[in-house]
């Protein structure tokens, strides 16, 4: 027994465990303001579902995992936060995530391909085997010409893993138009947006938006990322857990419970009532 108890002084040891490092990239273009997805039974905007999914992710990840984020719209991706430990900085991460909104948008349209390309480059700069998670509805504004993939072909030298997350409803709906201060001032009308040059002058209904999963799948294939669609806040975390985009890192693990439990068993053993054989 004494021997067991001495073992209690085992220090915490560093064990290699899988941890997740993610750089989330949020599409904050106007189409992400479309309210056609459900969150807890309420209809919310695509961006709000994306934020809820990110909040759920930082809750679910094991300690030692790191999450940071970027936003993209127009032709650019701006990194807002480098990855931080989800346990140590949980409060700060949650508070910052809540600040993400459409008012950050510096440009109304968005090129999803460029956003994806720049996310990969950013993740490459961050290093530490950070995986990219890009959350978008795949709506390109202005629309691509037929045959254009929308993403620079050269991605050599970047060994970045990751996942593209599709968010949005299946049927095309009008895109709300907002003013400088983020207030909704009606919807975008057909003549106000650029129609697809492939439409031969016809109205290709670019003023309406739905989840363009085909486009997102094509983009993710070009850069070797996985693709997953989310319908609820928990979907993203489970898809990422399944995809095993983890890296192996050393993190301190408390193993004192093993000898302590053995000691407990020993003491108990002495007191387990034994039914004596009557001889």
């Amino acid at each position: 027994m004494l021997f067991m108890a001495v073992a209690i002084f085992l220090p915490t040891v560093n064990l290699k465990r899988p941890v997740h490092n993610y750089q989330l990239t949020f599409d904050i273009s106007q189409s992400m303001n479309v309210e056609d997805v459900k969150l807890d039974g309420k209809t919310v905007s695509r961006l709000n579902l994306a934020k809820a999914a990110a909040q759920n992710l930082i809750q679910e990840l094991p300690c030692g995992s790191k999450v940071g984020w970027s936003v993209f719209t127009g032709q650019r991706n701006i990194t807002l936060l480098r990855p931080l430990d989800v346990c140590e900085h949980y409060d700060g991460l949650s508070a910052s995530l809540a600040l993400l909104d459409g008012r950050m948008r510096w440009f109304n349209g968005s090129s999803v391909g460029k956003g994806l390309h720049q996310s990969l480059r950013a993740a490459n700069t961050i290093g530490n085997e950070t995986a990219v998670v890009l959350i978008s509805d795949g709506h390109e504004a202005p629309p691509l010409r037929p045959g254009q993939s929308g993403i620079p072909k050269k991605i050599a030298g970047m060994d970045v893993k990751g996942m593209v997350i599709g968010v949005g409803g299946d049927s095309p709906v009008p895109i709300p138009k907002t003013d400088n201060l983020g207030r909704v001032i009606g919807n975008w009308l057909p003549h106000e947006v650029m129609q697809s040059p492939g439409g031969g002058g016809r109205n290709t209904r670019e003023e309406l938006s739905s989840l363009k999963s085909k486009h997102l799948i094509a983009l993710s294939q070009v850069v070797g990322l996985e693709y997953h669609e989310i319908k609820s806040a928990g979907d993203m975390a489970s898809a990422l857990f399944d995809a095993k985009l983890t890296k192996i890192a050393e993190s301190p693990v408390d193993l004192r419970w093993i000898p302590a439990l053995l000691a407990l068993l020993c003491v108990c053993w002495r007191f387990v009532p034994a039914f004596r054989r009557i001889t």
Partner: protein
Amino acid sequence: MLANISFDKLPFLLLLPLVLLPLISHRRDALSYSWTQLLPQDPVGKYVEWLWRLLALLTLLSIIVGLAGPGRSETHIERIGKGAEISIVMDRSSSMDAFIHRNGANPGKLTSKQDYVAVRKQMSKNDVLREALGWLLTKRPNNRYALTLFNSAAMRVTQFTDDISIVQAALDASDIGRGPSKTNMGRGLLAAIEAFEGRSYSGSRVIMLVSDGGAKLDAKIREAISEGLKRNNISLYFIYIESSPNSPNLELVGTEVDSTLEEVALHKFFSGLDVEYQVFQAADPESLTKAIQRIDEQQNLPLTYLERIPRTDYSQWFLISAMILCGLLVLLSMTQRVNWQ
């Protein structure tokens, strides 16, 4: 005090019924005897027996509680220290990615190895700013910081927080990629003012605006800024990073500087505000650091803040006591007759 105790690994508490085991009389190590009535009374032995059971019970209890990982939850203690609530508003447009000019000299073409070293020391305005702000974060961790970036839109990145690393991570992130080219300082300022809305007043409030350019603000925005700063009682510090040797010297405005320039117009608007305002001109890394140091010196007034006391773990104490109890148990068991030989 007790209300703050929480368990890390609650499921281990399910083992608690085990502590009752020593109270059950049948024991594995009991010796057979033909007729217990024949045994002499042993009052000392009885006491020892009960002491042994009690000790065993305590041992089990300590191990299980120790396993469950008890600890006092994270708490916050209100303290009064020195510092300020600083809302940093940082220009994140592409001009900030340009090199900061040093002593008016442009690196130009490289001619010798020495020049190469000099150029390597060249840092972008953003690099220099990050370094200077990083210095402030490390030196004054008790200040509360919020960070807002702006280009043609405003991006509030962090809310006022006691977690310095998150502000640092946000600063570090600003060197990845380039920002868009346009700027709209008005929106940046309004967003920084918004960070103070609804916060109780706990010490001096500062907006530290860092930009390498001026801005044309329309009347509506001017009014919103003026009103917002006054209502929330915020002092404004404008750190103006010169983009070229031709940049106006704002610290000298009021004498004979051309007031048609955006920077000068902005400075004049700020000076006319009903709140404390100061401008700092920074031409190179040294003057930028100095500007931030000067702001720091001025903003060293009492500040009420909540200090976070991290969770303290008590499990080690329970495990140690379990070990001591175990030792006593072993000692006691030596007095026990193991067999009849």
